[in-house]
Structures are given as C-alpha cells and as structure tokens.
C-alpha cells in the first residue's frame, strides 16, 4: 500500500511538473519597427532592381525585444518559481498582415540571444531536458516572413525554458515596384509550447 501511494505521488508530481504545459505570456516591446530607406540603402547601379542593392534596409539588432514568461499560478507559485520548475520547448513563429506589396520582409535573431529567466537555476547544472538555450532557425540568417491573414507563419527561433529580452532584427527587400512613401503593417508573433 505504501509503495502504491508513493507511486501515485510520483505520477501526480510528474504530471503537474512536466506533463502539463503551463500558460505563459509573450511581451513584445520597443514599439514600432521602423524600416527606413535612404540613398545609401537604395540601388545605385542603374538597370538593377532595388532588391539587389548592396546596402539593405535593416533595423537595429534589437528592433523588437520579446519576453516569454510562465504566468504566476498563485502568490506562492510566481512566474519565477514556475519558470524554475518547468522547462518546455518554445517555438516562435512570425507573420505579417498588411505588409507592403512587392517587398520581402525578413526577420532573424542570433545564437543564444536574450537571457534566461531566471538567469541561473539549479537545473542549469544538470540540464536533463537540454540546456536553456536559444537556437535560431536558418543559422541566424534572415528568414522571409509570410504575409497573410490565415495565420501561416514561419519559425524564426526556438528556445528552452523561460526567456526574456530576445532581440529580433528585421530587413526589407523592396522591388522598384513597391510604393514610395511610408506604409504601416502588423507583425504577429506566435509562441507554441511543447513538452521536451
């Protein structure tokens, strides 16, 4: 009977601790992502399309900063406690809506960019589910972002455990057929959580 109770306790703890994905919240900061062309980033060789310009229209590396932190369960199980006790795999997908026509928008981040939350926990000394690291897709090179209303999105990076201050950089490759002036659009970030 004692053994059965211990087994049940183990199953319950395991289920609560690892088998159930806890809710988390994404925070996107830094405001509007500005992609501004000037004479240095426009094509300078007559005959070529503007997409072939040597100098690309790029944002700073940290045009967007993204956090993903597990929610607080109660006053005891704070976000920090939950992020310490629960290590999941998160994949971050991006798509746009209302993006300018005849322009390719791209995004990227970098190897292990951002920082772990909490910064250091006991788990890090023996990461049985893998280190709490960030892995950019496509080797940290730019990835085209789809523009649609269906929600189809492209994975830009993935990481294990809670993470914050993840920088995301954007680039635009406009054709000469893109419209002159300023056009606004929406950038959507979708985080999916999976068990490791």
């Amino acid at each position: 009977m004692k053994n059965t109770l211990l087994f049940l306790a183990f199953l319950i703890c395991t289920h609560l601790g690892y088998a159930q994905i806890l809710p988390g919240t994404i925070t996107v900061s830094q405001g509007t992502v500005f992609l501004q062309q000037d004479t240095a980033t426009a094509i300078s060789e007559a005959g070529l399309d503007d997409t072939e310009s040597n100098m690309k229209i790029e944002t700073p590396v940290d045009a967007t900063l993204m956090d993903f932190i597990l929610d607080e369960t109660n006053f005891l199980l704070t976000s920090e406690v939950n992020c310490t006790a629960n290590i999941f795999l998160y994949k971050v997908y991006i798509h746009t809506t209302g993006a300018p026509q005849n322009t390719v928008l791209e995004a990227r981040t970098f190897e292990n960019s951002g920082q772990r939350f909490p910064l250091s926990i006991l788990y890090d000394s023996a990461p049985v589910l893998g280190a709490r690291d960030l892995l950019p897709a496509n080797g940290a090179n730019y990835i085209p972002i789809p523009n649609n209303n269906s929600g189809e999105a492209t994975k830009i990076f993935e990481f294990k455990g809670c993470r914050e201050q993840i920088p995301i950089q954007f680039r635009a490759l406009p054709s000469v057929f893109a419209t002159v002036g300023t056009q606004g659009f929406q950038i959507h970030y979708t985080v999916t959580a999976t068990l490791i």
Partner: protein
Amino acid sequence: MKKIKQLHFGLIMLMTFSMASQETLAGDPNAFLLGGDQGQNTGALTLIPIAIVDVEPDPNNTITFGGIGTDLEAGMPILSGALNGVNEELWLNFTHRAFNGEHRRIYVRSNLPIPNGMTMTLQVINSVTVQGNHSALHHATPIELTNVNQPVVHHHNESGYTGNGVGHGYHLRYTIENPNALTLPNGFEIIYTME
C-alpha cells in the same frame, strides 16, 4: 492488487493522451493552445523614389571617332572614311521607382555645343530586357544631338528596370558626319537624364 494495477494503467494512459494531444499543436502556430501565446507590434516601411540611368560599359564608355588614318599621304585629300563614323558599342540602362505614379522620360543632350558643320545623331536601334522588368518605349528615329534635352525613352509604366550592363536596356547608335574635319571641344560629353 489487480485493482491497483488497473489504476496504474489508467493513469499512464491518461498522461500519454495528455502529452500526445499537446505535441500536435506545434505545427499549427495560429491555433496555439494552453502554454503558447500571441503578440504583435506594428511596422513601418519608408521607401524613396529612384531614378537612375547609366551608359554601359561603365566606366569605360568613352567613344572615339576619326583620328589619323594609316593611309594618309601628304598632298592628297583626307579620305571621308576617317571623318564620318558609326558607333554601336553603348547601351543605356535605367532603374525607376515612381513617386505617386508619375511617368518619366529619359532625355539626351550634350554638355557643350556641337561645332557648326559637324552633325552627331543618336538612334536607339534595339530594346532588350534581360533580367529586367519594364515596358518603356524608346524614340526609334534618329535624334540630332544638341545641348538641349530631347527625349529618348518614354515611360509607359510608372516603375521598372532594364537589367544591367551591355546587352541590357537600349542599344545606342551614334553617327557622326564631319566633312570639315572639326574637333569636338575639350570636355565634350553626352548626358542622359531621367526627368
């Protein structure tokens, strides 16, 4: 004991089902469930108008007419072959992003007057789009060059590009008639502008 084993089996099945159903969500980012989230911010792209032309091969696009023939003989008249000439080595390229859908033209002129008695004409003899995308039409008949702008290419679409280099864009033919053996002034240039 048998009931306990059944309980173990039931719990394991429940956990397996729970884990499997969550794993299938990862491939559908628009349908995230518990554990994921969505956020958004705004972007703004600002583009400038572009209007650039060049004459290829660039930078080696200087052409020479005339010169001293190898068969000249003192006391004999200068042969006309050394004084008239045709050159078809140059190509005109452009790239244009229109502002507010405006149409532009490419004009040609000389920076200095052509000497009286000398005639220089320009003709676009071919239009080739290689790795380009445009539908601009050219002025097909020969143009007698002066130091006043004359249209060479008319834009019918607002934006476009010809492709870059020799063999792309507009094939140019320059013809010079110089019966009086005059010399072009120092610094003479033929200038193309998109306006």
